[in-house]
């Protein structure tokens, strides 16, 4: 009995330790974002300090932060939306006609290094005068979102019994109508999973936007990165910017926790 209690205490200590390791960078980022520059460069590092909002005021005031925020949202939103339009029928087809090779073909877009298409894009988009436009950015971010949508949705459609469409088809409906009117309305959870995940990955993307966007369509990760290179020592401002960029993805994750876990793990466990 006594051995069990010790065992339990040890177990919870380990769990707390793991949680702290995971959480610590977030906590430090958050607390630093409320520190003055003097508090940040203090040695030894300060745990207790008077919080200030000046870093957030600076980030949202001086920098065009709101514009970048909107850019990120528009690019992510359009890329995810268009990927659903292309990806849902493709995923349905993969699921119902067991097109395994097609699934692998689309998965390739998730596996291949982005830079091996980014360099040609740069040349092609420059020629077409599409640099620093939403078109170029949305197209590139679709290549992030589409494989996620197809991957998650084909597995999701697999879990919907075929009999549902078949009985509608016996009653005279076409297959495409059954897909639209019966299957899609049942696919809410799968769609939420794929939208959440693909939006987060588009939101976090750095490399594509770094090359394809300039002042007009700059997204948040680029803005945060530039903030560091211009203002090397302004750690408070940088940390406030880091909090601002991570907050939406983290909030989405908290809301859709169950879906995000499923989306991230299903590929490896069963798919």
């Amino acid at each position, binding site marked *: 009995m006594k051995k069990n209690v010790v065992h339990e205490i040890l177990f919870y200590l380990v769990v707390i330790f793991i949680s702290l390791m995971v*959480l610590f960078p977030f906590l430090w980022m958050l607390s630093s974002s409320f520190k003055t520059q003097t508090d940040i460069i203090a040695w030894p*590092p300060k745990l207790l300090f008077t919080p200030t909002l000046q870093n957030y005021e600076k980030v949202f005031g001086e920098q065009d932060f709101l514009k970048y925020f909107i850019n990120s949202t528009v690019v992510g939103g359009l890329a995810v939306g268009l990927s659903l339009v292309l990806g849902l029928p493709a995923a349905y087809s993969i699921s119902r006609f067991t097109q395994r090779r097609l699934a692998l073909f689309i998965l390739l877009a998730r*596996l291949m290094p982005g830079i091996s298409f980014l*360099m040609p894009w740069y040349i092609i988009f420059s020629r077409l005068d599409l640099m620093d436009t939403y078109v170029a950015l949305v197209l590139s971010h679709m290549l992030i979102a589409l494989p996620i949508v197809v991957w998650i949705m084909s597995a999701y459609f697999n879990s919907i019994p075929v009999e549902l469409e078949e009985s509608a088809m016996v009653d005279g409906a076409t297959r495409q109508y059954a897909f639209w009117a019966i299957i899609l309305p049942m696919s809410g959870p799968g769609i939420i999973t794929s939208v959440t995940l693909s939006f987060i990955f588009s939101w976090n993307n750095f490399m594509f936007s770094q090359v394809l966007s300039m002042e007009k369509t700059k997204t948040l*990760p680029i803005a945060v990165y530039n903030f560091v290179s211009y203002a090397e020592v302004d750690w408070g401002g940088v940390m406030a910017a880091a909090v601002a960029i991570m907050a939406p993805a983290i909030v989405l994750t908290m809301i859709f*926790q169950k879906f995000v876990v499923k989306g991230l793990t299903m590929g490896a466990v069963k798919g």
Partner: protein
Amino acid sequence: MRQPSFVERHLRVIFPLPAILFIALLMIFPIFYTLALSFTNWNLTSGMPMSFVGLRNFFRVFAEPRFHDAVWRTLSFTFLAVFFEAVLGTAIALILNRAFIGKGLAKLLLLLPLVATPVAVGIVFNLFYDPTIGLANWALSSLGLPQGLWVSDATSVLPSLVIVDVWQWTPMITLIVLAGLAGLSEEPFEAARVDGATPWQVLRHVTIPMVMPVILTAVILRLIDALKTFDIIFAMTGGGPGYASETLNIMGFKYSFEYFRMGQASVILIALFFFVLLCSLGIMKLRSSSEN
């Protein structure tokens, strides 16, 4: 019986066609474009017309010590990071694989690094690693250890970057292995218990062999992504100091978008592509063998 329409008869082609065309246009065509460029001397800044140079770019890049270093660095970064992620990730999953108070919260916390913007993560770790004001050196000195230069020094930069990758991606392995553990059937465990196996024996001879396929898939997925690591390295060091943290991805990026030597850049990209393809074939092989 109603006669199926043209669309309905060809649905298996029509439904996936837009997605296939999109990927062909935006991925397959560019990859061949890169391949073609590798045989030319194209330099965007020189203004000279492009000409065919055969395998000269390959010989030049393959002879460069900077390229050898980048290949070696890419492989060692990948191996080190994924090794620690696999060991730690599996261990944490095995620890958490039981009912306990706050399990939901613990799993939520594990998700957070996975969705955190890598560029921002890199910047936060740069604050940790700052030699004069960073927590890392403060921790070392309060333990009585000598302070380090972390990402500012050529010898410590790669391990410092590995730590960031391990922090961010270990939870991925943990969550995948946890999902795998949840899907195991109870029977072998009961059989082992009936036979009087110790918990340690159960772990070694039943649990681990049974989740091994899941661990392997997770590891290969991580290998592929670790080979391509770009954001944290670019944001934290830009490949420096000197070239000390320049991986293939960073080197390819610099050749493409800083030096605009497209021909040579293509060769570097093809090399990276090759390593990723090798791992991808591994994952497809695993997938088809687990299906049979």
